[in-house]
């Protein structure tokens, strides 16, 4: 029953949001694109506007690029595996009858609300520190040699920190999905004598598959731009330099804007490939 007038009004109401987002997306992105084809190193006073694809070439062929892509893949895969497996188990656990369910839920989701710099520093100093960290005391207590996590296993340490932050997210979303599972179906399977593993594998897991996909896609998009956790722990040293961090270092630390911008565009393209899949799922859901 929308009239012509209300349609015009609607357009006017949407306009500001569309306009600011359009500017936000286009202006900086076009600038990055422009710089990515330029030799721009402000510290040395170099600025040459068009040098073709040579920034892309040197960015992609440098050994640090391949290592950064490898590090990013390890990090994202590691965090995803921990959070998805842990999240499914926690979601199923929280769905069981128990006392104080609400409190346990609160305990489990709390890490998600801790700001990244705090969680990274707390883990770095109070758990991983080789002299005074809790893990060192634990190792000593067990009669083992204390282990310097952040220099011996830096990638693993960061994976632990970030997985701790994102486990609540996966748990919460998967719990929502678990709770929407019809209990009749499960009860019928139980009556038929299907053992727990089979019920999990043939009924629960298929039911969760969509939620798991969504968690994987959303987390991947956020995890690709992990920054603060690396910034305050290793600062990109010891093989923890992800693609995001490499671009940050090229742009702000070594001030090679052209090279860094080419890296930035590559990061944008990679993120978009994942975003397309996520958009499809969201778009489909919008229709029903």
């Amino acid at each position: 029953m929308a009239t012509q007038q209300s349609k015009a009004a609607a357009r006017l109401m949407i306009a500001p949001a569309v306009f600011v987002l359009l500017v936000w997306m286009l202006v900086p992105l076009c600038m990055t694109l422009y710089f990515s084809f330029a030799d721009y190193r402000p510290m040395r006073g170099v600025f040459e506007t068009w040098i073709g694809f040579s920034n892309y070439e040197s960015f992609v062929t440098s050994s640090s690029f391949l290592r950064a892509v490898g590090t990013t893949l390890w990090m994202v895969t590691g965090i995803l595996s921990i959070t998805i497996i842990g999240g499914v188990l926690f979601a199923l656990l929280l769905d069981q009858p128990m006392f104080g369910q609400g409190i346990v839920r609160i305990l489990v989701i709390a890490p998600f609300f801790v700001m990244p710099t705090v969680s990274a520093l707390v883990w770095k100093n109070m758990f991983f520190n080789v002299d005074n960290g809790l893990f060192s005391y634990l190792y000593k207590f067990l009669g083992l040699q204390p282990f310097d996590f952040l220099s011996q296993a830096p990638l693993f340490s960061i994976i632990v920190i970030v997985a701790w932050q994102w486990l609540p997210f996966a748990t919460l979303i998967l719990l929502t999905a678990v709770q929407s599972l019809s209990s009749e179906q499960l009860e019928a399977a139980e009556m038929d004598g299907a053992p727990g593993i089979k019920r999990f594998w043939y009924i629960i897991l298929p039911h969760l598959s969509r939620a798991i996909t969504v968690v994987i896609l959303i987390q991947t998009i956020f995890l690709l731009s992990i920054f603060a956790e690396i910034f305050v722990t290793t600062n990109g040293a010891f093989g923890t330099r992800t693609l995001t961090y490499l671009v940050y270092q090229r742009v702000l630390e070594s001030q090679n804007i052209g090279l860094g911008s080419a890296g930035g565009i590559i990061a944008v393209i990679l993120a978009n490939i994942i975003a397309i899949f996520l958009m499809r799922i969201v778009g489909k859901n919008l229709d029903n």
Partner: protein
Amino acid sequence: MARAISRRKKIMWTALAWSLGLLIFFPILWTFLTSFKSEATAIADPPVFFMFDWTTENYTTVLERSNYPLALTNSIIIAVGSTILGIVIAVPAAWAMAFVPGKRTKDVLLWMLSTKMLPAVGVLYPLVLLAKWLGVMDSRLLLIVVLMLINLPIIVWMLYTYFREIPGEILEAARMDGASLKSEILYVLTPMALPGIASTILLNIILAWNEAFWTILLTTVDAAPLTKFIASFSAPEGLFYAKLSAASIMAIAPILIMGWFSQKQLVRGLTFGAVK
């Protein structure tokens, strides 16, 4: 008999869930405990859990001696400011998309979400350059605008899903009674939309408070919020655990409390309605 077994099962699940829950929560609990210790007790070997002289000295030290109060003020202004600005821009847009949907509404919504997927690092240098050029580097205004922009898609999306749940018949009835667009919004829609708007505000404050890419890279001192302030603790080693803990607890406590209230909205806001 069956009842007794289910009770035993329930106790077993309770024990398991509580131990695992406490394990996940432990780093926060440990930070909380450490924040009340003296620096010497904080690194005592073996570690002390509860039996120590509790002191609030760290809190007063952090509050008095450092830039903490400024960082806290900045965090509040930036989180609240970006949220208000975002709501002001998003409410009309979400309202229009929910109640006067056009052919392209879905595309606009999806496009807005897609801007959220843009990796920040891809536009890092232009933003630094523009900020310097406009003379707003290290200012609260810059962060308010940037954080508003990165969270705007989530705000629009959340509001849209809430508004869509408001039955359209009520609006039509109001229109039949001759209500103008203005009174329709003011007296019919607003009261029904307020809970949704409130949850959106809550989630957005949480997201803005914890944002740790732009807040670290676009500030130095004047506009540095808590994320940046805490990051400055990364250099020193040694006797500072208790103070770090006190600063951390103060930085996360308000958000932790707000977060506990917004568990459900979190799912809605961060999955864009893809999981219900």
